[in-house]
């Protein structure tokens, strides 16, 4: 009970923002009839699902004091590789799915390895791997979508379990695992320690290289999973999917109250951040706002959300 109370208190600003958006879309005449239907709620959740997966990894990366720009490109690459395995090489769908996820993990491992073993900043390392992953997707698919329409393929992104969309279930499972990992393991604490003070962590006997390695690998795993989910929903592996997905994930994490300077942040906040961005996208569509304008509005909302949080924290700090 105390925990729930604390959760609301910590995230008060963004919870109010979320509720205000929901209320507005419920009251607004154009969206009143459509917004709070079961159909649309599942829609929002389905659209948010891959962003939450990425954001779970991204939260840990940012708490660690890093950034992972490569996740968007890994989505494209893993989707292409997975679909190609099934369509071009005749492998069973499950193998294709595993290949897709594995390709994400491998990229995460490589990111982690370089970042842990060298002093190159994560921004640069993942900027490089972002380009490489994107390149692999284009080279392998020759720039064309690889279509795959089998039921087994469609299950992960477009299927249902007991009426609930599969990606929504995946999303919650992933979220719970991430929460347990970050809050209830030693490594989880070590992530906060390394992000808070890298040198102190070394004196604490924390294997900082291992922590970085694990976190970036996890982020890669999440990107691979998101990639195959999207490829499944689109019935195809496409080298343009996942464009800009890393920015949506970073936005969700930051709106959720995680500090870009590392050492602090909570997945609970990230969840709300993801929902705010998801509802914003959905609401703007329902309201029929021109998609060009949507970018501008989205940017403004992110700035506003983070600024409000900044003001709140400053008050607390003084």
């Amino acid at each position, binding site marked *: 009970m105390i925990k729930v109370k604390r959760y609301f208190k910590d995230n008060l600003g963004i919870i109010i923002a979320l509720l205000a958006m929901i209320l507005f879309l419920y009251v607004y005449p154009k969206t009143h009839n459509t917004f709070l239907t079961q159909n649309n709620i599942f829609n929002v959740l389905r659209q948010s699902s891959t962003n939450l997966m990425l954001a779970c990894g991204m939260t840990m990366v940012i708490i660690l004091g890093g950034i992972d720009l490569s996740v968007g490109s890994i989505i494209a690459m893993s989707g292409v590789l997975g679909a190609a395995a099934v369509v071009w090489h005749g492998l069973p769908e499950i193998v294709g799915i595993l290949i897709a996820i594995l390709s994400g993990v491998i990229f995460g491992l490589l990111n982690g390895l370089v970042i842990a073993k060298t002093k190159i900043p994560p921004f640069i390392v993942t900027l490089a791997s972002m380009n490489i992953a994107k390149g692999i997707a284009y080279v392998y698919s020759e720039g064309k979508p690889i279509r795959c329409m089998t039921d087994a393929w469609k299950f992960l992104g477009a299927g249902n379990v007991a009426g609930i969309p599969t990606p929504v279930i995946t999303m919650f499972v992933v979220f719970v695992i991430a929460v347990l990992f970050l809050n209830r393991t*030693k490594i989880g604490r070590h992530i*906060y320690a390394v992000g808070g*003070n890298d040198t*102190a962590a070394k*004196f604490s006997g924390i294997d900082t290289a291992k922590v970085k390695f694990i976190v970036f690998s996890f982020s890669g795993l999440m990107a691979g999973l998101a990639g195959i989910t999207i490829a499944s929903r689109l019935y195809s592996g496409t080298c343009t999917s996942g464009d800009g997905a890393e920015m949506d994930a970073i936005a969700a994490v930051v709106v959720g109250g995680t500090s870009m300077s590392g*050492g602090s942040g909570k997945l609970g906040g990230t969840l709300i951040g993801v929902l705010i961005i998801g509802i914003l996208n959905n609401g703007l569509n329902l309201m029929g706002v021109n998609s060009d304008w949507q970018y501008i509005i989205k940017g403004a909302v992110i700035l506003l959300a983070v600024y409000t949080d900044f003001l709140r924290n400053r008050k607390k700090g003084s």
Partner: protein
Amino acid sequence: MSNYLLEMKHVSKEFPGVKALQNVDFQLLSGEIHALLGENGAGKSTLIKVLGGIYIAEEGEIFIDGKKVDINNVNAAREAGISIIHQELVQVPHMTVAENIFLGREPMGKFGVDIRKMVKESQQMLDRFDLGINAADEIFDLSIAQQQMVEIVKAISFNCRILVMDEPTSSISDREVEQLFEIMRNLASQGVGIIYISHKMSELNEVCDRVTVLRDGTYVGTRVVAETTKDELIALMVGRELDQYYTRDHVKDTEVVLKCEHIDDGKKHHKRVNDVSFEVRKGEIVGFAGLVGAGRSETMQCIFGLTRGSTGTITLDGKQISIKTPVDAMKYGISLVPENRKVEGLYHIQSVSFNSTIEVLHLFIKNLMVNRKKEAEITQEFIDKMHTKTPSHEQAVTNLSGGNQQKVMIGRWLATEPKVLIMDEPTRGVDVGAKAEIYEIMNELTKQGMSIIMISSELPEIINMADRVYVMYDGRITGCIDYEDVSQEAIMKLATLETDQHNNGDAGNLNSQEAAKA
């Protein structure tokens, strides 16, 4: 009509929940060097920030030359002739000395900034103090002390009459301190009033005329330095007579717990640890003295498993052990409290609880379950043991005073239940009250059978606390002194072995003012 250069009357400043200053008075004479003394949180910085126009006091008046002035912002302070040199220097590293001095008021020529004029004028100012600094050099290439000199020159270039220096000697060497004092005296003789903030009591006699003591945001008293004693000042700062500053029950010839032989950092260049051997006995405090850079911290880091490629034999309780990582060291019961708590020790934005328990997570995190009760117990145990003052377990450690931060950090490593605790400068940046408490705790720990290795650059601390003192010079141990024979001269002789041979008489210069026995 007063003849004070600066007079601050009844200054009060409140922050939410804290009365930072209550009715504080302060007077500064022209040509005087006036020390401002007080423990962390006593209100020194707040008073200075009020003077500098960074904070606005709710109550109080400021007079300069007997005339009331309103200092509402930084520029008003500057116009009133007040300059403040902050502890953390605020200079642009990749600009030249001249550019830094003229930052924001560059002389303009026909084609933009007149660089030649700027350098020329800067050089004239620098040369007035015979500093040997080139105005065209980048700040980046100067030593910390030289940067401070530039800051002073910059302050004077504003025609300042009141110069405030906030702990200017905390990060510069003793020789540079001498040079700094020389400049201060020079300035004072020209009629500038200097307010000098420092934690180092020993510097007072050296350079200050009068001293004002603050405690808990209130004015306690002003003394003439020549007519007061260190004990009196400490009593004023702490608010009570410290019956005992150092607490130590010496031990001798107990059994050997830790034996380190031929420790070497294995480095080819910049070798700092060269065939170091020493032993630690049960219940002992073993002091490690030496100059900065003698390799004391580096030796301990080898033993704690922080230096890859280091070699040597370590024997604990008669058994040879192999330490490759800090985790190994802690497993065997060796812990290290690092020297620099800001950089190497604390997780600043994290809570007291997080900082206290990070070494012992295995005690309460198991199988995806966090035992919050146990976590709170451990945190409380070491808050009690160390007498840490914190409003709650959840308080961010960065909000605690230096002394309490240090206690949290020591408590963290005590939680690993070490047999041998290595403490690197255990009282650096800690105010006197907390210092005495830390000494008492160290004594208590050794009585319970723990052994402590204490690296310290404060000779009085070494002399009064250690049972045996190893002295290092240039990566080697140059001698070991028992507590009966220890003296400042004996340590300095060993610590400056080389200097002593080449240049007699220079040895006493180092840290000598600090060595004045308490």
